């Protein structure tokens, strides 16, 4: 079986896995990184959303062979030592209910704010509508994104 090496949350990992094994299962089962959740396995719910080279992607749809030599960031690696401003905003707005989709929602929101530091409501709609929240926390997600955008702007930096 081939061995793949990539950067995961800042550290180098190598895993032995079939080339077509979805990264979601590599992360959850071979590497014990359980922040990305299984919600559908077919890329329609967004519960596993993470970052590949700084861009949002769906590990359930990404064969492990495609991430060799690249940088994978999951919710566990987002904040480094502390909390990312988007995570802080999620806490301040008390977004989560069951919480199962929220790692994916947060990773999608960070991606949005990196590309568009001051998103309009329409921008938020466009960027966040591929992530399902069955508890219906969308109103608070929107508030949290706006709050994080303000924080990031006043810090003068990107995400």
């Amino acid at each position: 079986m081939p061995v793949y090496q990539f950067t995961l949350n800042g550290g180098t990992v190598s895993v032995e896995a079939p080339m077509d094994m979805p990264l979601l299962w590599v992360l959850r089962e071979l590497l014990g990184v359980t922040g990305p959740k299984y919600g559908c396995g077919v890329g329609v719910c967004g519960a596993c959303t993470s970052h590949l080279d700084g861009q949002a992607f769906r590990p359930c749809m990404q064969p492990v062979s495609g991430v060799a030599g690249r940088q994978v960031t999951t919710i566990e690696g987002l904040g480094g030592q502390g909390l990312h401003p988007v995570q802080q905003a999620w806490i301040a707005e008390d977004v989560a209910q069951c919480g199962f989709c929220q790692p994916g929602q947060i990773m999608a929101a960070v991606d949005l704010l990196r590309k568009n530091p001051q998103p309009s409501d329409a921008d938020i709609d466009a960027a966040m509508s591929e992530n399902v929240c069955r508890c219906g926390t969308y109103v608070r997600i929107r508030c949290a994104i706006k709050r994080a955008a303000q924080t990031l702007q006043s810090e003068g930096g990107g995400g």
Partner: protein
Amino acid sequence: MADTLEPDVPVSEGIDRRRFLTWVVAAPTLVVAARLGLDVPSASAAEADVLGTSSGGSSNETAFDLYITLRSDGRVLATLPRTEMGQGITTGVAMLVAEELDTRLASVEVRSADADPRWLIQLTGLSSTMRYLAGPIRAAAADARARLVTAAAHRWRVLALSLSTANGEVIAPDGRRAGYGELAEDAARVLLPEVSPLPKNPSAYTVVGQPTGRIDARDIVTGAARYTLDLDVPGTVPVVVARPPTLRGTVQTFNAAAASAMPGVVGVVQLPTGIAVAAQNFAQALAARDALEISWGPGPASHLSDGSIRTRLRDAIGARPLPPLFTTQTLEGRFDFPYLAHAPMETQSCIARVEGDRAEVWLGAQDPKYAQREVAAALGWALTPQRVTVHPIRAGGGFGRRFFTEVAVEAARVSRALGRPVKLMWTRNDDMRHGHYRPASHHRILAYLGPGGSILGWHHRAAIPTVEFPHGFGDLLTALGGVFLPEVSSQLFFALTQHVPYHFGWVTQELRDVSIPIPTASFRSVFTSQVGVANEIFIDQLARALGRDPVELRRSQLKSNRLKAVLNKVALEGQWGRPLPLGVAQGVAVLEEWNSAIAHLIEVDVTGATPKVLRVVIAADVGLPINPKSVEAQLQGAAVDAMSTTLSAGIHIDAGAVREGSFADYAWLRMSHTPATIQVHLVRSDDRIGGAGELGYPSAAAALANAIARASGTMPTRFPILQAGA
């Protein structure tokens, strides 16, 4: 372990004026148990083993509602027989404990207890957790505080009444302080508290009633929160199950040769529900599942599709009854609601370890005792269910789906067959296509008008496939209502919960229970999600027939002042009647249920291809809102559910199979369909604690339908309105 109980401490009139019993459980540090005091514990209570991990029969044990443990590190642990599924109960319970104990919220942990027959009510549902548990929690925490104060008074040889408490410490007038942790052992031996063990008056609250963020928010946003399949139980192998195309179809023959030869495959196990495949990881298990060759027998509903089901339901309505005397006009409305899947984000999942004559399962269960019985029965231990330990785990949404625990039965069977622990996951397809569904329904409402626009009667007959209620509902309704209800049937639950809150003369509502072999379950607000919605839509039709304004008509006919108050609040805050462009309109609806009252005002724009909700304004009276932020979250979420199922989400049945397979075709609302704000205004008429989990669904659905009717000129009668999805 045979713990000794101290004599019962007479406690305390709760806020709802019922009596709670609290008692100290012998343990190294202070542990106080509490129960709703319908009767006193029997003399054999002294033998109770509150903290023991297992025991035989239950005839000589004291049943209780919860217990609170004061640890020597100063932390407080509340153990309760309820499951956190996103509704925020752990935060609400922690707030009540922190309030009555005068300790910091951050010092309180809340844990879900394993299944155990000694829990009086171990069921999470019917919007009952805070209504039912707030009293015992307050009583237990206040009792614990009184004993901590007494222990400090003995240590310092001062009058207990001279001491005060704050931030987890007892404080003497001379400035001496002792933390609860250092008093926890002595407090366990206090025989009689020397200060009042009664809970505070709500007017003294500083924590309860304050908008408070979730205590598990940080765990959730960092990915540290653990759901069932995130747990690390050593040696588990992943399992998925090949399932029939039709609901409850059967395996006729199967050939696992190709699948068994696939990489990583550990075993193949035939189950009553399908063929299970275990492998080293889920990717391999899913691949091997696809390689199984199975011929399936049709399920019991294979002769049924949407059309034939609707016909059966319509046929069950029957002839019109005779109208009341002096009726001059009868208005008739007919409504159809679809099957709904609960579709929690976390699919059905369970870890099971069966070894010899013991089993252990971990899952997000709304009724862990039911899971225990079902697993025990499947393993041939129906008479000794205590062999099965059920650990309820934080669930990724429940909504009524997790009363049923087929996943635990499957996992236990596979674990026994393979002789090793397993983690069994339903795929999203499995979860959508093999669930228990909120049943479809058909409704006929007749409104009888008399001379001068008077309303002489209201007759609602609903044809609904029989709802499978969990056994725990009977216990819970018994405890809440004080009337003994061993089993809850659809008819009984309908009669208990379905009310028309208006002065409409001769009011009758009837359920025609229709037997259809499609698995069912309760769903947020149960029958009110159909009956209550249809009523509130038809009241707008009545207003149109009488030429009256929908708000004015409701105001004039409502029996309840609480409902009038919330209706007035949304009319004010939502500016009822404000000028709007053509194709945009407002709708209102109300509901009173589980000691709470609510009104919704929704504005919708129907000028586009699909209706677009512009604004949602909610006013709710839940009595004392323990955590207003949590109440608001529940009401916002329920509004999203209502918009989803009114507009676009419904389950279709094609020859006994469920058509929808994921969120791609089960069109639950997304961010872009949700209005930017859902305003929630809390009105507080008294300090009773009302339910909040289900409250926000029915009148949101009806207000949206009413807004669409007023904007488009056509009353929606069949849901979801966009059958093809948004």
